[in-house]
């Protein structure tokens, strides 16, 4: 059901910067929630991974805020919720599992970065304003770097064995 927001209604560079900021801020919120979930369920390895992901997205958000200069993207983002669909980079909380591994977390992150890449690419493909197109191309390059970064991190964390979700004392006895 989750769909990416409409990429074709962007009318100004300020709006694009606001959306880019919002995407990163939403991702920070999700990763923070996932870190809290893992903390509650004593999956300490994942707490660190999700906190690191939240921190990385926070740095991206801050970079966009600086890039926006006098445009107050923080306030604008608060005043302009997504018109339709979900923020492309937000991890799906429904994919979480109490025994998930760093590989799963990075797969979530990879999916988010790829959705963001596709989103900005669709703006590049459809924008008629050259300034919007140029800035969207910058975001495409940025998101492509993030995708590569997650791929590099995944080399450190190979896929877990198929039995990763087996629990000798499961909550579900049914």
């Amino acid at each position: 059901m989750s769909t990416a927001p409409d990429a074709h209604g962007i009318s100004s560079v300020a709006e694009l910067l606001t959306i880019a900021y919002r995407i990163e801020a939403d991702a920070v919120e999700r990763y923070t929630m996932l870190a809290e979930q893992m903390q509650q369920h004593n999956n300490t390895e994942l707490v660190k991974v999700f906190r690191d992901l939240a921190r990385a997205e926070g740095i991206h958000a801050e970079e966009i805020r600086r890039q926006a200069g006098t445009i107050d993207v923080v306030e604008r983002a608060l005043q302009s919720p997504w018109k339709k669909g979900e923020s492309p980079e937000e991890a799906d909380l429904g994919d979480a599992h109490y025994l998930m591994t760093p590989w799963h977390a990075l797969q979530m992150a990879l999916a988010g970065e790829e959705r963001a890449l596709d989103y900005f690419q669709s703006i590049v493909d459809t924008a008629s304003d050259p300034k919007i197109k140029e800035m969207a191309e910058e975001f495409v390059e940025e998101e492509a770097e993030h995708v590569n970064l997650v791929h590099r991190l995944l080399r450190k964390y190979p896929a877990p064995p198929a039995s990763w979700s087996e629990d000798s004392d499961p909550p579900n006895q049914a």
Partner: protein
Amino acid sequence: MSSVDTRLACKPSDYKSDVVPVWCPGCGDYHVLLSFTRAFAALGLPREQIAVISGIGCSSRIPAYTNCYGFHGVHGRSLALGAGLKVTRPDLTVVVASGDGDGYSIGGNHFLHACRRNIDMTYVVMDNRVYGMTKGQPSPTTEPDFDTALTPGGTGLSPFHPLVIALASGANFVARAFSGSPNETADILADAIRHPGFSFVEILSPCVTFRPDEREWKSMVHPAPVAETNDPARAARRLMTDDGFNIGVLYRGERKPYRPPFGHPSIDIAELEKEFEL
């Protein structure tokens, strides 16, 4: 809904408390919490003008996780608490939260009469078709073939159809949402809160621990193929053939909400205490 002063508007995170949820990772209720906070922010509601009332169960923990007035009440009695609050404090925005066990079984009778009374409040049921907190017993909305150690061979019982019941009992707004689409759900919640009278929103919210099959819901839900209606007869026909996964506002009625005839009486506490003197 109470009058809104947008100068006091908060951002979504301001409506989230510092209490960390203890729901299972993957639980749909995390998304519902996001939707609550986004809906409140979109409406610009001051936190002190909102009361989130609940009963018992996983979903009923939500008042603790919102930074508004809240009451974690008695099993199945959240609507009674919410109705009492709304008629005495009509200035508040009252949102009642429940689950399919708390709301349709233990609190089933309150559900019928809350719809009938049409008091201006919003009732949100996070439906996962199972009793999660007590480890996986079937609820009123569980499918008849739910075959587990607790229900060998399935229950064999027809599930309760909450939207049909809500409509037939007089609810003034009937909608279904999916937790996995939090922005869309926030829009539906905001719409429900704005609409006068008793608004009922069923949110399909997967229980990934006791109903891991519900992870598939995200590929099963779809927008309602027909536009909303204000005609109860048309809405009834649609709901009777509903597949359980139509998402959107399905009925928007025009009944006048119930308000107590005495308005908002001023009570002298000393006078009230006299009644209880021994």
